[in-house]
């Protein structure tokens, strides 16, 4: 009975899918046509659309766009009815048009002034991606103050440092969780005065002498509009290109976070250049789901959104991001490599459960795509037959797959932050998604180098972005000078001087070189992590780690070897990938720790490392970095335990100190090691886990002139 039902459902599904495919083809035809038209009017012939007006700014006109409030005013008058911010609330996408956004933000700014925000104040903003939160960033600037967005998963002590450092008098918080954190530390904050919250849930009984509901604040702003509007206008007029636009705290792989001061010129010129580079315009849309405290999100969701008047879309909750992505179908998309990685992993896993026919089609057409897909995307010569096959593949596999992932409409996609695995990168590009890499940092207002359309290589980060100069120092460190280069580190002239020289050159802290073949920049590692081994050969841990992390089974790894004779590695397995593998191979496990210690798992990881050793051995400069021994850690490296930054970069120093017993065991030749580690649970409680870890030796490849260990 159940089986028959299943079959019926499968038939129905097939029918629906066929219909979808046909409509997809028709849609494709139509979009092809519209793409054609777009291309025609993108040519530099005189045209009257809004976009050209933005792109051909005279310097006078640009001066009218010197701050986010100015841009908001322009958008509200030029595109009053176009969507500015959307959010899924109560299951429905709710929209603020630009005109509405201006009203909401103006009221917020009036309310802030009435509450006592003065010009030059710092106002911290903590919350998830929501229109009101994004709006408040601009409202703060409108009121003449400086917004300081914070990471919402920061624990109270981390927040305390930042709030104290910037001397925030006002904090805008998203919900009770954030409010509680601020209230917990309020006694340590001598400058703190008022807390404004967005979601009133659970806070009815709180003492409201210093607490304010954001909507009530807007109301009181509206009521006071007559008397305060003049003040507001003069504060907006007082904005110049040199006024601080935002202060962002870098997560800092070492030491305390630093406040990076970015002025209006940094943000607006960077956004302008980036918009022009990729031809973004008001019809584009973006899914905003990355932390608001991250510079990328500020540039994409605020800077670029305001400059090009493109709409941003906030997911319903952190868990619904993938389905919201599918509903919105953004045309401009940014995701760190791990998001693409998990997308590919889920595609691969789900294809394994698909019917044989589907699997066959998938394999055949994906193989075809990997052969010609990128050339078609880049506009290179491809035979007519291959094009035809690709077209069929598009109808049968690529388009439905892109649709399922929510990437159907992506016109410009970026990834950055970490190296992306070539297979992952090629997978998405071969399906016709214009995925590119960029290289940047907070201090540069994101953009240092970008890959132009048609010149995309998985192992480079592209050419210098518009208006950016890049040079490589003797030591191999990359320096840049650009309009986006930050003003200073707040209250820290020494570290400013260390990073930025008087001529405006900023040290990135990354070592890299320009690829002689294509002139693109290649980043090897953090400059300070690049070290020498005892025999004098170069040690670049990230180079090896990235190669290892390209295997879906390996989530994270840390390679040791600075000042040593051989390289060793810690590995974190990816529970989703390895767990699925274990299920298919009848390997029982009850916990992460048990799976991580399973001999079969160790064997698989050993195989991966062997393969990487072969690849590493081919690189003349870095062949000494082959991994000789490894162990699989009994816990996942976690930001809550201080082992990673909030942006998920490993903190080498912390790890090598915390797990010094394990490092020692790797080097002294032991076959296993007992260890006990303190962990912090999500609710802040601490506990201990202990384990005996097996250490395995790995085959290495002999390199001419060197003798390998085994």
């Amino acid at each position: 009975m159940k089986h028959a039902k299943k079959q019926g459902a499968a038939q129905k599904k097939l029918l629906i899918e066929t219909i979808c495919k046909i409509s997809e083809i028709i849609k494709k035809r139509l979009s092809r046509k519209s793409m054609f038209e777009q291309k025609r009017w993108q040519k530099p012939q005189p045209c009257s659309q809004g976009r050209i007006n933005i792109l051909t700014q005279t310097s006078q006109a640009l001066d009218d766009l010197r701050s986010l409030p100015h841009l908001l005013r322009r958008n509200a008058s030029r595109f009053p009815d176009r969507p500015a911010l959307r959010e899924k609330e109560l299951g429905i996408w709710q929209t603020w048009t630009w005109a509405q956004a201006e009203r909401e933000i103006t009221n917020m700014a009036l309310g802030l002034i009435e509450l006592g925000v003065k010009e030059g104040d710092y106002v911290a903003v903590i919350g998830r991606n929501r229109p009101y939160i994004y709006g408040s960033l601009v409202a703060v600037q409108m009121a003449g103050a400086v917004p300081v967005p914070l990471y919402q998963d920061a624990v109270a002590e981390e927040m305390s440092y930042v709030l104290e450092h910037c001397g925030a008098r006002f904090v805008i918080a998203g919900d009770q969780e954030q409010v509680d954190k601020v209230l917990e530390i309020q006694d340590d904050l001598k400058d703190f005065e008022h807390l404004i919250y967005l979601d009133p849930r659970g806070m009815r009984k709180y003492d409201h002498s210093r607490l304010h509901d954001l909507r009530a604040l807007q109301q009181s702003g509206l009521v006071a509009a007559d008397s305060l509007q003049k003040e507001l206008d003069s504060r907006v007029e007082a904005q110049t290109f040199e006024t601080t636009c935002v202060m962002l705290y870098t997560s800092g792989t070492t030491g305390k976070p630093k406040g990076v001061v970015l002025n209006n010129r940094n943000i607006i010129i960077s956004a302008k250049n980036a918009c022009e580079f990729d031809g973004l315009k008001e019809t584009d849309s973006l899914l905003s789901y990355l932390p608001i405290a991250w510079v990328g999100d500020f540039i994409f969701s605020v800077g670029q959104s305001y400059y090009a008047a493109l709409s941003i879309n906030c997911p319903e909750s952190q868990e619904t991001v993938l389905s919201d992505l599918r509903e919105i179908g953004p045309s401009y998309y940014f995701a760190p490599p791990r998001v693409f990685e998990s997308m590919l992993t889920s595609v691969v896993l789900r294809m394994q459960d698909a019917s044989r026919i589907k699997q066959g089609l998938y394999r055949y057409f994906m193989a075809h795509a990997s052969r010609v897909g990128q050339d078609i995307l880049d506009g290179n010569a491809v035979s007519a037959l291959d094009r035809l096959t690709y077209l069929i593949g598009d109808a049968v596999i690529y388009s439905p797959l892109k649709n399922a992932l929510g990437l159907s409409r992506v016109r410009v996609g970026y990834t950055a932050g970490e190296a992306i695995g070539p297979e992952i990168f090629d997978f998405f590009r071969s399906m016709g998604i214009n995925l590119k890499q960029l290289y940047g940092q907070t201090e540069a207002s994101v953009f240092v180098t970008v890959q132009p359309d048609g010149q995309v290589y998985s192992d480079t980060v592209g050419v210098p972005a518009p208006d950016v100069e890049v040079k490589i120092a003797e030591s191999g460190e990359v320096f840049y000078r650009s309009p986006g280069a930050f003003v200073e580190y707040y209250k820290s002239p020494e570290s400013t001087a260390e990073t930025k020289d008087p001529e405006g050159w900023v040290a990135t802290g990354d070592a890299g070189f320009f690829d002689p073949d294509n002139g693109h920049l290649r980043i090897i590692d953090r400059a300070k992590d690049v070290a020498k081994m005892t025999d004098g050969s170069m040690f670049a841990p990230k180079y090896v780690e990235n190669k290892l992390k390209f295997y879906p089974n390996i989530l994270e790894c840390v390679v040791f070897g600075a000042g040593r004779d051989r390289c060793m590695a810690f590995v974190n397995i990816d529970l989703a990938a390895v767990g699925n593998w274990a299920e298919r191979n009848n390997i029982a496990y009850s916990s992460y720790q048990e799976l991580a210690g399973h001999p079969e798992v160790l064997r698989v990881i050993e195989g991966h490392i062997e393969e990487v050793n072969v690849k590493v051995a081919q690189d003349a400069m870095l062949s000494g970095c082959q991994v000789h021994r490894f162990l699989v850690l009994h816990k996942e490296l976690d930001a809550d335990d201080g082992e990673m930054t909030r942006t998920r970069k490993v903190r080498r120093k912390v790890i090598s100190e915390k797990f010094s017993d394990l490092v020692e065991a790797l080097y002294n030749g032991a076959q296993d090691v007992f260890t006990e580690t303190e962990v912090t649970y999500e609710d802040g409680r601490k506990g201990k886990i202990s384990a005996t870890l097996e250490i395995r030796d790995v085959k290495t490849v002999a390199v001419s002139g060197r003798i390998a260990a085994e």
Partner: protein
Amino acid sequence: MLDSQVTQTTADGRKIGGVMMEMKNITLRFGGVVAIKDISFDILEGEIRAIIGPNGAGKSSMLNVISGFYHPQDGEVWFHGKKRPAVKPYEVARQGIARTFQNIALFEGMTVLDNVMTGRLTQMKSGVFQQALWWGAAEREELENREICEKVIDFLEIQSIRKTPVARLPYGLKKRVELARALASEPKLLLLDEPMAGMNVEEKEDMSRFILDVNDEFGTTIALIEHDMGVVMDLSDRVVVMDYGRKIGDGTPDEVRNNQAVIDAYLGVSHD
């Protein structure tokens, strides 16, 4: 909000009103088995009232009496100051009493949203045919109901599983969906039958938070059966203790904790 006058305020600032439901000398028999024997207690408006007791004490039977599923042979149920005749459970539900079940009773093949929407059923006025045509009043009503359900979904933070069939959900989430369905009917009195049974510590903490939030945010009166003593003592304002169908204790968590009869029932008494 409370119907009657506020008579007391708890330490954490919640308002508790007059008597909402009163059980008077309830006796329930199944043939020769006496499940509940001459029990009386009341539930005040706005409070969290726990019913505890060892296995087989008659707790679930008591809840079923409140919800109108069982009709006691003796005794009276008074609700909002009126004696309640022996009515069908759906009529009780219409009066504003909703419940969750010890063994989850959801429609497994339906999505979370559809399950939650069924919680609105007792509130619907339009008939089957109007609903089928989905026109005029029926459409308006459905939209209103959907909005209420969406608010509940938002409140319980289950947006990400809105369209997921219930059968695919883990146990802890199913429990939460059951709570959502009960809340969708905007009850005055919410009956929870072992809301934390079989949950891990984290899920229990989440559930406790939701129960407190429901009580706090909507002023819903809650009667719950629970085995986890920590949870009961933390959550409830007053506790009824049952053993072998009899009431052996009634009072605040502290009073109950120090009640000798309760201690004996839970820990056993030596017979020498």
